């Protein structure tokens, strides 16, 4: 068994998935993201990347488009393979 590794959500490639570990951001960002379903333990997958633009991710059962700067603060644990 490979051990899980922490990635920034912004570093995930299309199709890659994992679980949300924590948010490395200030109080406001944390509250905002939590209210939209970015909570520890939730399943995360990368649906779409488009150059420098926001990325589209699946968080639990919500599709959220999120700017890369903010996505960088979302730490995701992925199984290495």
């Amino acid at each position, binding site marked *: 068994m490979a051990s899980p590794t922490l990635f920034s959500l912004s570093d995930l490639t299309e199709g890659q998935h994992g679980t949300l570990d924590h948010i490395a951001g200030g109080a406001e960002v944390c*509250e905002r*993201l939590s*209210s*939209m379903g970015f909570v520890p333990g939730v399943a995360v997958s990368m649906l779409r990347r488009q150059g420098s633009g*926001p990325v589209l991710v699946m968080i639990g059962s919500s599709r*959220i*488009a999120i700017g890369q*700067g903010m996505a960088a603060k979302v730490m995701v644990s992925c199984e290495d393979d």
Partner: protein
Amino acid sequence: MEQLSVALTGNPNTGKTTTFNMLTGARQHVANYPGVTIDIAEGRIEHNDTALTISDLPGTYSLAASSEDERVARNFLIEVPTDVVIDVVDATNLERNLYLALQLIEFGKPLVLSLNLSDAASRQGLEIDTTALSEALGVPCIPTVASKRQGRSALLDSAIEEVRRHRQMVGHHKHPSERNRVPYGEEIEAQIRSVQDHLIHSDLIGKDHPARWYALKLLEDDRQIIERYHLDEALAVAAKARAALEAHHGSDAASVIRARRLAVIAEICRRCVRTVGAQAVDHTERLDRVLTHPVLGMISFLAMMFVIFQAVFLLGAYPMEWLEEGFEALGGWVGSLWTDDGGLLRSLVVDGMITGVGEVLVFTPNILLLFLAIALLEASGYMSRAAFLMDRYMHRVGLHGKSFIPMLVGFGCTVPAIMATRILENRRDRLTTIMVLPLMSCGARIPIYALLIPCFFPPAWQGTVFFGLYCAGILLAIALAMLLKGTLLRGETPHFLLELPSYRRPALRDVAYFTGQRTWQYIKKAGTIILAAAVIIWALGTFPRLEHDEETMDEAAYQEAALRHSVIGRVGAGLQPIMAPAGFDERLTTAFIGASAAKEVFVTQMGIIFALGEIDPEDDDDDSSARAQLRARLRAEYPPLVGICVLLFALIGTPCVATLAITRRETRSWTWAIGQWVGLTLVAYLVAVLVYQIGSIWW
């Protein structure tokens, strides 16, 4: 009969507006609440001998607001006394939706959860034990399918019942926020109590306010709440309590409290939601493979925009023609009620009111079609995809992807577009978007374009020029946005964060309601602002009067002379030297002064200035119609270069009175409103002068 007020809240994309339409049917109007300074749709209904007033609040994810929309919802919930709150929850996404629900429960207002989209939840194999959920949360949870009007009665029954239960409770217990409390554990509870006691003893909040909730906000260090409700005095106590919590838990108090809430929610969902059977096939995923694709998505987007604009103008042309004929007939008929020439009153009614308002109402079909298209884009879930795709490009010019939505609305009418900027989180982005919105060619520009373009351009070129003007507006908006973001409104654009809802078949009722409401706003504008402007402009264009000597002057020549003699004519003549470098003569200047009330008035003014005399409503022959005659006169009088300058000036300059008013209201500042007017007019002037001067070298 008992009167109850109900606030409808919930996350965005949960079918809140569909629920509102299900509850209230067609009995809705837009209400304005003091302090909330925003229009909130309101519906009145009767249910089991109770009269209910239902307010539809903007969607919000949390009571910690980050956009204007969310602030409105939060301030309404906290400040406007309502008897009961209905929280519309997406049953397919319960865990996330409970985040707001839990905050509302803690706030302590009587609350009912409407578990909307229950049918979709069952299809996805989700089984929600509503009895257990109601018990765990301490509030009734009613499964509904708003689009099919299922659960309406149960929801209303439950809301009324909840008010009664709450009233009994208040008689016996402390504040209801004390019940249904989230169990935070001993350490946190002790700190909540210490802050709460301080709040109660220092009289910082009213007796009927939820002290526990404010105590939590202080512990979470919610700056917005602390500032708005003047809780600064409790900051020292709160800081001490926070420090104690942080020492104990090793992370900040807000995170500790949030983690507890999330744990409670997760536990409730674990107990009340079961997944049975397989998930249905997801259309959203398949559609998104194309529609959110960086290349295919962009192509689809452009194709959709092309189809929409084609449809708006092609389909809109027919009803527009009927309306035009209708107004001409009306004017002719009303005019014929006077046996003599009727004098001033006839002139006021026919030339001022009917013509002025008619010119605007004629474009109602175009506006309706455009708003219909926008409603379909919104209700189907596509709009947020467009914002997602556009963000990369919008970001480069200093705007936000979400700014794209008001801009699209702006092609219909600037007023609802400016209102739509409320979805933007950041005031600088909002201001930038508002400032450049009048550059989107709104419906009122169409009559001007439609009059002038055929005058100066051969048929093969007309479509291109028309399209070119729209593009010129967009390009200028981009340039101005960059300028504003680089100077007055410098600052970071916040990160893009937007939920892309699942694609849904648009509910006919919602689309009809949305389209109807916005179109009605446009018609109302014609009946109020434009009517008033038409009368004022008529008066300014009529007085002081000129004696009509029928021996020496025919009717048309008299009208022209009379206008020159009037206030508008004199102002126009006075301003003409300033406008001369743009190629404008006295008559064009005069027409633009009239158009400062509303763009469309320009066309009306040109008609009067060129003294076309009476319009014969019986005359169906296109070539001799008033519009064709006017075109012929314009073509004879002005070179195409002046035509281009006039078009550009109409595109950029003098935003209408309604825009001025809505900008003032939404920015809460006359400076921005007047700044917008002056700034855009100045830009219009510069562009027109530049084009005319450079163009003159060749022509």
